[in-house]
């Protein structure tokens, strides 16, 4: 299983530059998720790795081969498409065995491989059906099976779950995670869904406008986002952003805004000195709020009771804030409650560069 390196990758469509200078390394057997809003270049990047789009500049290195000018079939990869891309005129068995038949593998081996994969994906009963005679979830599994029988070095996934309904998506996500644990290949997965990214990826690459905003493990991205974009993109419900000023209150730096002041831990003092008395953006995850006496008094405008948790919509200094807390009984809207926030759980961003402070 080779490592994959993208070096100074560039993609132009005519005069439009979609990706300017992309550099990324993926280790052996790593599950890498490219995530970002639509138009961020994640699918284009994947399609360039697949060889379905030509590269304008730069190199794609798989193992020790520069594959950027090679045909897709020479790159030793398998791909699962968003719309499954099954061959409508072939039955499930034929769909799954197409690559093997093209490679002129002998029939007994093909049948064995297809049989095994169909077994693991629960498709044995459908081998003689055409794609049109299958449900969405079954088609999705056939697409997965078609990639799996290939035994390729690298697996590419282009938003494979986005055409499924929510419940099925959850199931398939779990199956995918199990599969990736079992076969341990290079996997590159494109999605716009941060939950998929967090649950599946060994490494997450957050992209925006053709640039990598941050690459790291799910935990790194969640705990220490490099900028406001990543902070807002990762985590659900979304992080709250509040305008605040960094002030020195009796030797302790605090983030002070309209109606609140959150003291910051001394450990961060050194790094933050330069921004004293300046405006900053304060980021607080909804789950960083805790209910307790002596905190900020905040009104409950809306309460979404999910069961063990509730998401409350509230207001702080005239700005909308969402709060996620554990609940036993539903909290009613219209009440006023007290919430505390720990200084070591807040994130600070430069209002101009949006970089984390």
């Amino acid at each position, binding site marked *: 299983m080779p490592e994959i390196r993208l070096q100074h990758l560039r993609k132009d469509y005519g005069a439009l530059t979609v990706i300017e200078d992309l550099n990324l390394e993926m280790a052996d057997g790593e599950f890498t998720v490219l995530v970002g809003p639509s138009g961020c270049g994640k699918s284009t990047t994947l399609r360039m790795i697949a060889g*379905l789009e030509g590269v304008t500049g730069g190199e794609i290195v798989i193992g020790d081969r520069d594959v950027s000018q090679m045909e897709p079939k020479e790159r030793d990869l398998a*791909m699962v498409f968003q719309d499954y*891309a*099954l*061959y*409508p005129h072939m039955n499930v068995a034929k769909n799954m065995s197409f690559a093997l038949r093209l490679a002129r593998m002998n029939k007994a081996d093909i049948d064995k491989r297809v049989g095994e994969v169909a077994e693991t994906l629960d498709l044995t009963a459908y081998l003689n059906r055409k794609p049109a*005679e299958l449900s969405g979830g079954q088609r999705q599994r056939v697409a997965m099976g078609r990639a799996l029988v290939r035994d390729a070095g690298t697996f590419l996934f282009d938003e494979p779950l986005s055409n499924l309904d929510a419940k099925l998506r959850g199931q398939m996500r779990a199956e995918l995670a199990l599969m990736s644990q079992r076969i341990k290949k290079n996997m590159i997965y494109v999605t716009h869904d941060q939950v998929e990214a967090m649950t599946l990826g060994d490494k997450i690459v957050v992209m925006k406008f053709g640039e990598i905003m941050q690459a790291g493990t799910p935990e790194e991205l969640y705990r220490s986002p490099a900028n406001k974009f990543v902070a807002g993109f990762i985590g659900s419900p979304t992080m709250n952003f509040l305008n605040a000023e960094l002030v020195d209150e009796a030797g302790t730096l605090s983030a002070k805004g309209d109606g609140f002041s959150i003291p910051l831990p001394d450990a961060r003092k050194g790094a933050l000195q330069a921004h004293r008395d300046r405006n900053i953006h304060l980021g607080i995850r909804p789950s960083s709020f805790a209910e307790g006496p002596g905190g900020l008094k905040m009104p409950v405008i809306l309460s979404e009771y999910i069961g063990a948790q509730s998401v409350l919509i509230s207001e702080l200094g005239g700005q909308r804030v969402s709060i996620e807390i554990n609940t036993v009984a539903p909290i009613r809207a219209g009440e006023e409650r007290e919430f505390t926030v720990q200084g070591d759980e807040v994130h600070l961003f430069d209002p101009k560069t949006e970089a984390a402070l």
Partner: protein
Amino acid sequence: MSIARANRLTPYLFLAPAGAVLAVALFYPICYMIYASFLDWNPSQRIGEADFIGLRNYTKLFSDAAFRESMWVTIKFSIVVVTIEMFLGVGLALLLDRNIRGMSVLRTLFILPMMIAPIVVGLMWRYMYHPTVGIFNRTLTDWGFDPIPWLADGDWAFASIVIADIWQWTPFIFILSLAALQSLPASAIEASRIDGASGWQQIIYIKLPLMLPVLIVTLLLRLIDSFKVLEVILVMTNGGPGLSTEILSIRINRTASEFRELGEAAAMSNLLLIVLLILTFAMFIYNKAQELRAQRMRAVEEEA
């Protein structure tokens, strides 16, 4: 009359004018022709004066060597032109299904022959095939080859009308194939590239099978059309030399105007009509089968 009843009748009210036109323009002539085929009818007679001779026109046709020859020429012509046109048309479509600068202009150019009136096409080719001043023979003699008797020799004449028809009708197949190609699911073709299919393998295993429904309908349409071809050949060879290019519609035309046998011409027309009906019916059956299959698939999908 109740409102429900009025609602039920409304569609028929709107259909009535079209029905009337069909009855006058299609149904009446066909009945007339079927009746005429049982008569020994000379153009100088009124239809009421003609003798009723039963099926004798038909039995005469089957023992008529010239008619059999004409039938054979028609079938040979149809099979040859449609086969070559299918290969060329689909081939061109596969070749030109890409984004190259100026491709839209090229595509438009390809379609032009189809838009020219058949008489003009016939005249144009007749001039080009002209034994001395035609462009083909002039070019051949310029290059030092012997001129070819394009329209004067039976075999060459057949080849000549085949070439002209191919020139005119390949674009039809080209356009339909191109449309079919461009509506194919792009991701299935991409998937086949990833699966390791070469350009040829993509065509043979993915593109052609997926285009098949359109290709079959195109084939049947072209077959129906090629059985009815008249003007181009009439202008170019008028069926000659001998009977070498006398396709059925020319034979019918001659039987009616030259041999003055209206009854026999009607019988021939009826036979041609039956052939066309069989082809049309084949197309209808095919479409129906496709529809039923699509319906069944939908049913399965809803179940799943």
